[in-house]
């Protein structure tokens, strides 16, 4: 068990927006290759926590490590030094993120969306990136849409492009922030299918979701958050089928 390397380690993470404390000491460990699904009522801080992992939000206390590196700070002589913009950007390169509202770049075609970051950020060879991007788009079932603009695609198709865009940077960790919440019900399945494939291939994933079915099927670890803390976590058949905490029971009884 202990031999599996740890990808994400969050230790007593606190985050406040002004006087509102959103995260009140979150602890979470995600092993390499593991899929963690974070469930919880809205306002429980799960999206905020996800955004802290790639430093879109600065945490106020505690620490987050990704693949052994402290996120957003550098430790030197027992003191924390804030990272410069460039170093933070470099850390983010290996962490893919998929947003609830897709956030594709509307002025670029699907292919350009996927190629943008590898070409501009990593300065990789353009022809090679193009081949890889086409392959990725084929993998998410969109090889016929490469030259379309995002505005011409359905929500499910846009979200699959967003996943391909994140994968094009060859991340070691993928963060999903309610990836199916903005979709019409009949389009949810196609996005979840892509995510299942990804999980099967061994990608480390943290998924904030309301799709209990997906969590039950795919997650190695289900994390239930409420009120800015992790209330309980464990394998899906324990947490979803047989929750121990009252708050978890109350939440699941509403969504199941």
């Amino acid at each position, binding site marked *: 068990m202990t031999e599996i390397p740890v990808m994400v380690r969050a230790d007593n993470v606190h985050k406040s927006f002004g006087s509102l404390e959103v995260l009140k000491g979150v602890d979470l460990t995600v092993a390499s290759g593991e899929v963690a699904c974070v469930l919880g009522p809205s306002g429980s801080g799960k999206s905020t926590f996800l955004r802290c992992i790639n430093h*879109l939000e600065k945490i106020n206390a505690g620490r987050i490590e990704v693949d052994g590196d402290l996120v957003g700070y550098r430790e030197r002589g027992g003191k924390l030094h804030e990272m410069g913009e460039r170093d933070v950007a470099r850390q*983010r390169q290996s*962490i893919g993120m998929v947003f609830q509202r897709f956030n594709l*770049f509307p*002025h670029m075609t699907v292919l350009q969306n996927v190629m*943008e970051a590898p070409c501009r*950020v990593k300065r990789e060879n353009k022809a090679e990136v193009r081949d890889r991007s086409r392959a990725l788009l084929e993998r998410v079932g969109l090889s016929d849409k490469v030259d379309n603009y995002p505005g*011409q695609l359905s929500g499910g198709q846009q979200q699959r492009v967003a996943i391909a865009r994140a994968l094009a940077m060859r991340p070691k960790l993928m963060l999903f922030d309610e990836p199916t919440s903005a979709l019409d019900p*009949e389009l949810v399945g*196609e996005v979840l299918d892509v995510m299942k494939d990804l999980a099967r291939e061994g990608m480390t994933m943290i998924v904030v979701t309301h799709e209990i079915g997906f969590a039950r099927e795919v997650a190695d670890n289900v994390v239930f958050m409420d009120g800015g803390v992790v209330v309980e976590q464990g394998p899906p058949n324990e947490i979803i089928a047989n929750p121990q905490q009252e708050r978890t029971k109350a939440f699941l009884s509403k969504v199941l």
Partner: protein
Amino acid sequence: MTDQQTTERARPEPIKAVPVRHPGRWVAIVVLAVLTAMFLHMLLTNEGFRWSFIFVSYEEGKRGVMFTEPVLEGLRGTLLLTVFSMLIGVVLGVVVAIMRLSPNKILSSVAWLYTWFFRAAPRLVLAVVFGNLNVLWSRVGFGLPFDKQIGALFGIDNFNGQIWSIESKDLLAGFVAAMLALGLSEAAYMAEIVRAGIQSIDEGQPEAAVALGMSRGQVLRRIVLPQAMRVIVPPTGNEVIAMLKDTSVVAFVPVTAELFFQLRAVSARTFVVLPVLIAALIWYLILCSILMVGQYFLERHFGKGYGAAGRARMRLQTIQAEQGGVGAGGAGLGGTT
């Protein structure tokens, strides 16, 4: 079941109804037609316009006033002034807008101060002030600040820290003064336009770009500004057109190589006033019409991916999708639902 029903039932006759009448429209058309005829009658029969003076020949052996050498020279000056002032305005405007949106309080206040000043100062006044700035300094240059004072501190008389300088008479004569006055003033307006453009971009856009590891500069250049252009271009087109017309105020700097100045010079010489002004009006109408065509094409370019045409296409796509078009795309994944 429903299929059978539709095949059995005959398609009803297309509706033939008496359309709603609009008598008010017809009255309006008649009134406008009469007014137009009256206006044309005045233009064509009133001797005061002296059309041949404008178009054919204004003096023995000379072309019409619109096409004489000095006026064409002035036209060139007006166009150059428009182009250069707008260049200064756009470049500086983008810089000021970015400063204004900076989290750094000092940068944003400086930008605010800049827009405050140059929006408050009327262009005509500004242009004349710039034309007279050489009263303040005989030479303008770059160099170490407080050079004389620092020199005195170390006991050196007349220590000169100037690196480069130029006679201000030469620098701020006519054209350059006018260009600076118009350009700096324009930058204030452009800054507001660019700021509105940048702020119109959804927050998720820079966020997604940053999450991919892009730097702030890259996000601005590749993601935010190209999208903001869609919002920035139409009002900028207005600004160009306004600028073309505002160049006429620099006749008071004075700038001699400028359309309005040249036409007024003709009227001062010939004592013909109204036809000369009409000639100026016609030139401004022609130039603005050309600019409007250019604006149309620019807007079309930056509307890529959305815009009116894009939206129409999207709507069509949605309809096709509802009728099973998207199903083909989804099926590529193998078994949705």
